[in-house]
């Protein structure tokens, strides 16, 4: 696959994730029980190719978070949490390396990597991101129970939404990139 094709494809993914999030899932209209927020846009970062360089991931995370920040008027809150997620992702991937290492054409795909691998990967990263996000947003540890329940419900919500994205749009057979 040529380099321009890869860039174009990732650009399209970026626009899709951010566009759908800002235009449809935003505006507080899809908050569950006043506790669960949806971080659909994280799918862009989480489902990047496994071999993406760390520096590029960090930059993409910053750009992604900052675009959401501009739409939400949150300054740099989403950006800070997204950069943290981009930094932690290689560590989690290393932690979850299969016995014989990643294949060249392995992607983050629930069909290829299996349910167990995918659940741990998604759950761990989304939980860390949400912990950082919600405690940062409040700026204090004053309401730990409320914040933790927000984290819990949001992790479940985001996890289910991203799982649906995987099941709907990711190829079942390997080899199509």
């Amino acid at each position, binding site marked *: 696959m040529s380099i321009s094709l890869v860039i174009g494809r990732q650009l399209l993914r970026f626009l899709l994730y951010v566009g759908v999030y800002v235009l449809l899932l935003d505006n507080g209209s899809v908050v569950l029980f*006043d506790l669960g927020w949806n971080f659909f846009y994280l799918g862009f970062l989480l489902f990047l190719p496994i071999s993406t360089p760390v520096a590029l991931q960090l930059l993409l995370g910053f750009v992604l978070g900052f675009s959401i920040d501009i739409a939400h008027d949150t300054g740099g809150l989403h950006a800070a949490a997204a950069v943290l997620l981009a930094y932690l992702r290689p560590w989690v991937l290393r932690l979850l390396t299969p016995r014989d290492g990643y294949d060249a054409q392995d992607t983050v795909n629930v069909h290829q990597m299996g349910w167990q691998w995918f659940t741990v990967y998604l759950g761990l990263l989304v939980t860390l991101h949400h912990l950082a996000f919600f405690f940062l947003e409040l700026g204090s540890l004053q309401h730990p129970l409320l914040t933790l329940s927000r984290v819990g419900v949001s992790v479940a919500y985001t996890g289910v939404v991203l799982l649906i994205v995987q099941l709907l749009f990711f190829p079942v057979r390997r080899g199509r990139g």
Partner: protein
Amino acid sequence: MRNLLAFLLRYQGIMLFVLLEVVSFYFFLTNSSYQRAAFFNSANAYMGVLLERRTQVADYFRLAELNKQLLADNAQLRYKLYPPDFSRREADSLPVGRDTLGRVVYRHLRPATPPLPGQNPLTLNAQRVIPNSKPDTLLLGGSRQATRPLVPARVINNSLREVDNYLTLNVGSTDGVQPDRGVISAGGVVGKVQAVSQHYARVTSVLHSKLQIAAQIKRDGTICSVKWPEGMDFAHALVDQVQRQTRVLRGDTIVTSGYNAVFPAGVFIGTVESVATEPNKDFLTVKLRLGVDFSRLTYVYVVPAPPSIERDSLEQHTSELPASVKAAQAQAAKGGKQP
């Protein structure tokens, strides 16, 4: 040199990570300061256009609800136009007793002016002067800002459940909106303009931890302030700085006091829902039910700049030392240094 390059490459991840986090935190922490340029927020031209398009599309699916809201506003305003039932039945004189001949004596509420000599009292009666129909500005607290109309605006972006909430409006500096102007809606106070671009404005809503509104209790005029602490829901706020000895009742109306010229006086904020006295506190804890339903906010009005430059400069002058005193102090300081 090669070692340095190798070092940089080895630790590029962590260094870039720290750098980007510092940048993010800088933007996050300076977000609510008022001096920042209005580019990196939802009021910038590109994001504004995007959010406005989104609102246009979304509005199409809730036209009925929007019409109902406007209808309710219209009904309320129309009701205010009707004169009250008894306005025409007001007596212009009151019987105050009987004189010595047994006739009823009236005290006239509007004593007629004595007829000028040479004028027929009948024609005088015909051209009786109608009292000025405009309301007395004194009765309205002197804050009647009829010189310029309110600027109507559409809310195109709205957050409710964040720690600090903002709105984006589709009016900007070309429509005469300036920073620090109040924003109100049919239901009451909405917020304060924070930053303006050419066609859009960003508003800190009442649901922002740094916004305080100068308010008063309508019943007896007690001064207080309204604020929204972090972690409260979007239907309530707290009334601050109410002395313990003040009598506050459930259902009391809280309105703006008009003391800081952001809002005109007497704009509805909300009604008192509960009052509690806590030990070790000088002030009452008064919970307020906000008049505005922020979850279905659509049309709002920006209060135009009042002709209060004079007042503001006066207040600044009186809080500073007079110029002559300053000059004398500077002189003294100089004189003290030289010898």
